[in-house]
C-alpha cells in the first residue's frame, strides 16, 4: 500500500451520470482519494495521460471519441496500461461486452448500476477496504 494520493477519473458526457458517480465515490474523499471528471472521450484520454489515475470509470458512448477507443489507447500505452478501467455502458448486448473486452477493460458494468457496488468496487481497486 502506497501513501501517494489516489486518483479516480470519471469520463462521461452525461452531466448527471458524472454527478452520480462523483457523489457515489464521495466517501472516498475521506481516505484521501481525489476524484477528477472529464466530459468526453478526448478530454478523458488527455486526463488519463496527465493525471495517471488508479481507477477510471469510462462511458462507452461518447462524442468525439468513444469509450472503447479511449480504453484501447489507455491500455496500449505502457505509461497508463496499469490503470484499472471500468467500462460503463447502457447496452448490455453481447457484442458490446466483447468490444469492451477486446479494448482491454478490466470490468464491464451495465447501466443502471448500483452505487453501492460501484463504491465497493472502487474501494477494492484502491485497496481501501
Amino acid at each position: 500500500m502506497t501513501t501517494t494520493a489516489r486518483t479516480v477519473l470519471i469520463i462521461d458526457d452525461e452531466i448527471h451520470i458524472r454527478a452520480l458517480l462523483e457523489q457515489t465515490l464521495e466517501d472516498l474523499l475521506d481516505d484521501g482519494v481525489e476524484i477528477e471528471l472529464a466530459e468526453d472521450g478526448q478530454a478523458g484520454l488527455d486526463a488519463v495521460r496527465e493525471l495517471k489515475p488508479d481507477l477510471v470509470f469510462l462511458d462507452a458512448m461518447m462524442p468525439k471519441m468513444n469509450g472503447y477507443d479511449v480504453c484501447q489507447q489507455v491500455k496500449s500505452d505502457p505509461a497508463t496500461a496499469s490503470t484499472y478501467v471500468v467500462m460503463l455502458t447502457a447496452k448490455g448486448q453481447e457484442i458490446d461486452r466483447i468490444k469492451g473486452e477486446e479494448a482491454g477493460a478490466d470490468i464491464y458494468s451495465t447501466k443502471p448500476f448500483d452505487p453501492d457496488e460501484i463504491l465497493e468496487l472502487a474501494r477494492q481497486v484502491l485497496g481501501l477496504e
Partner: protein
Amino acid sequence: MVSTDVSAPAAATPWESEDIQLARVRQFVVSDIVAAIGGLVMLAVFWFVWQPDWIWVVAAPVLFSLSVLTYSLHMLRQRRLSAAVVAVAASFWLVMPAITFVLPPSFGACALATIWPVLLATPYVDRATLRFLAYVTFPVSLLSLAFSLRGDPFGVEETLGTTVMNLCLVGIGITFALLTLIMIWAYNSRLQDTLAGLHESNARLAANERQLEEKVAARTDELESASAYLRAVIENLPQGLVTLNGDGVVLERNAAFVDQFALDATEISLSEFPEPLQELVAGLSSPATNAAEPTSEEPTFVSLTRDRVGKASGTRITVAGGGTQDNIGAVVLVDDVTAERQIDRMKTDFISTVSHELRTPLTSVLGFARIIQRRLDERVFPNVDTNQRGVERAMRQVESNLDIILDEGGRLTNLINDVLDISKMEARHVEWAFEPTSLTDVVDQAVSATDALFADSPVSVVVDLDPDLPLVSGDRERLVQVVINLLSNAHKFTESGHVAISTSRAMASDNATASDVVLSVSDTGIGVAEADLPLLFERFRQVGDSLTDRPAGTGLGLPICREIIDAHGGTIDASSQLGVGTTFTVRLPSVEAAGRVETSHRFSAGRNSDDDASKLLELFSQQPLVADERPRAIDPENDGRPHVLVVDDDEGIRRLLRDIFQTEGYRVSEATSGEAAVHLASNERPDLITLDVLMPGMSGIDTAIALRTSASTATVPLVFISVLDRIPGPSLGVEAHVTKPIDTDQLLTLAAKLVTRAKPSSEDVVVVNASAAVLTTIVDGLERFGYERADGAATLHGSSASPDGVRLVIANSSTDAGYPEINRWVFRRGNDELVVIAFETENKSKHNRAEELHE
C-alpha cells in the same frame, strides 16, 4: 371339337358381321339344293326314257346329299357356320365320285367340284376345319380319278347315245359353271363389302382424327393462353424464379432472376448460379422418398448484385406414383429481402438506441435515489429531532417513497432488458449456445434461483423429476431463464398452496413423439379464463383485471419464454381453470444420440439382488457426497481439526478471519483469488470455505459457481463474506452470507453448524424397506466405504428411529411405505438437502421418484 383352336380366328372380321357370312353360305347351299333337285329331275327323265341299271348309283347319293344340304341349312339357322360348310362339302364328296363312277368323262368337272367346298370354306371357317376339308377332299378327288380311268362300265354311251351323253356332260359342266359363277359372285360381293367396310372405317378414322385434331388445337390454344398467362405472371414476378427438372437441369428462369444475379440472358446453366443456390438445388434434386418428407428445403440467403440480399426458397415438384412421391423437378424462388433486412436492422438499432437513451436517465434516477436513501439513513435521520410533530411520519413516508422509486426503477430496468431481449430474439440476433443439456440440471438451477422468492411466501415448490429423462439440445442459460420465468410467474399469481414443477417423457401423440421431453409448471393460483389463454403469450398482456389486481412484472416474460422454446424447436402451452390453477407445459425434442442423463440413479433389484446391489454401490462411489468424504476420514494430514479455507483478496480481512478461526481451533488455509481458491479447494477438500464477493478477476460469485459445479467441492459449505447485503446466495447453493463488518460470534456459530453438518456420521445413511438380502449387500458395501454400522437395526420401519443428521437415504420405491417417512424428515429439517437414492425390485417406470427432494 374342331373349333377348340382358339388361336385361329373365326372368320369374323370387323367389317363383315357373322350374319353376312351366314347369308353367303346359305346362298351357296340353296344353289346346291337347286342343282341337286335339277340333277334328280334329269335322272327321273333318264329313268322314264331308258330305265338304265346305273340310275340308282347316282340317284341315291344325290338324294342323300340333298338331305345333307338340308341339314346344312339347319346348321346355318343355328349359326354353326363350320358345321354347315362341312355338310356342304360332304354333299359334294358323296355325289361327285358317284357321277365319275357312272360317267368317267365327267371327271374334270367333278374333281373341280370336290375342291369347291374348300374354296367356299376358306373365308368362313377356322384353320382346323379347313385342314380337315382339304384332307378329305384329296382322297375323294383321287377316288374320282380312279373311277374315271375305267372306259364306260355301265355302257351309258350305248344306252343314251353319244348326243345325249354329250348333252349330259354339257349339263353337268353348265351346272358346275353356274355354281362357280355363284361362288365368284359371292366372293366378289364379299370383296365389295369388305372394301365398303374399309372405306367406311377409313372415313370414320378420318373423322376421329379430325375431331382429335380439333380437340388438340383447342387444348393447345387453352394451354397457350394459360401458359402465356403464367409466363406473364412469372416474368413480372418481382422475385427471381427458376425451374429445374428432376436431374437438376435448369429449364426456365424469369427476368427478375437473370437481373438478380446479373446472368447472361441467353445462357442457361446451373454452374453460373451462386454457390448457396447450387447447394439448395442439390438438396432439392435428392428425391423425396416419402410423402412425409417436406417438399421444401430450408430457405437460404444469397447475395445478389448491387449489394442486395436474397432469400432463396426451393420447392420440389412431385407427382404421386405407386405410393411414393416421384420428384419431377423443383422451383426456386429468390426473394429480394434487402429492404426487410434493412428495416429489421433499423428496428434493432432503434431499440438498442432507445434502450440506451432510457437507461442513462434511469441510471441517474436510481443511482441518486439510492444515494439519497443512504445519506438519509446514515447522516440525516439519526440527527433529526423525532420529537417534533409529524417528523417521524414524514421520515417513514420519505423512506417508503424512496423504496417505491427504487422498486419501480428496477421494474423499468427489467422491462427495458426484456424488450431488448425479445426484439433481439424476434430479429434472430440471438446467438444460441445449443448443447446437450440435462433438463434436470436446468430445473435445479431455476429452483435454486427462485428459492428466495418462495422463502418468504406461504407457497411451496414441489419438484418431481423423471430421473430417466433424455438430454435435450438446448441453450442452458436460456432454458433456465424460461423455468425461472414460469416459476416466478406461478409465484406471482398464487397466494397459497404450492407450485409444482415436473419433468417427464412425452406420450406419443399426433404432434409429439415419445422421445420428446415434457416440463410442466403448475400452480394452485387464481387461474386464467379459457378465453384469455391465447392472450397469455402475447406481448404486454397481463390477463385479468389489471386495475384491481395489478401484478408486478413486465408482461414480456411469457412471450420471451415462447421465443426461447420456439428457437429450441419445442412448444409451450398453457391450460387453466379459474380459481383452481394454471399449468404451463413445455415440450422439447430430446437428443436421442446423446444418451441418458448422467444423474440417472435408477436401477432395479431383480432376482439377482447381489448384482443389483453392487450396482447401487458403484453408483454410491460416484456420489460426491459419499465418495469425497471417505478420503477425509483417512487423511493423515487431518489432525481432527476442522479445516477452513478463507478466500479474500484483501490481506487485512484474511488476517482477521485467520485469527478468528485459529482461536477457535480451526485449521486455516488462505487463497487470495477465486482461481487459487478453486485449485486449493479441490486439493485440500476443506470443511468450510469463506468467500469474498468482490474480487478482481474471478468474483466470489463465479468462484462459488465453479466450486459448486466441480464434483470434488460440490458439497463443501460456502459462506459469503461481503459488504453487500443482497447476493444471490441461495441460487448458487451458498449456505450462508455474512455481512461486513463481521460479527465474530455469528460467524463462528454458523461455521460450527456447517462443519458438523458436513461431517459423515454413523447416522448418515438410512436404508428404507430393503429386503434382507439387498440390505446386507448395501451395508457391507457401505462398510467398505468407511461407514460404520450403527447399533441396532439399520432398517427403518415406522417412525421410531431418529432421522436427524441423515443426509442420504436409500429407499425401496417398489412400496410407497418409505416415502411418507422421508417427506416428514424433509419437512422437519427445513431447507436442508436430503439425498435419496431410490431403487426398485421390479421395473416400474411409474415410480419416477426424484433423487433429490427439496423442502
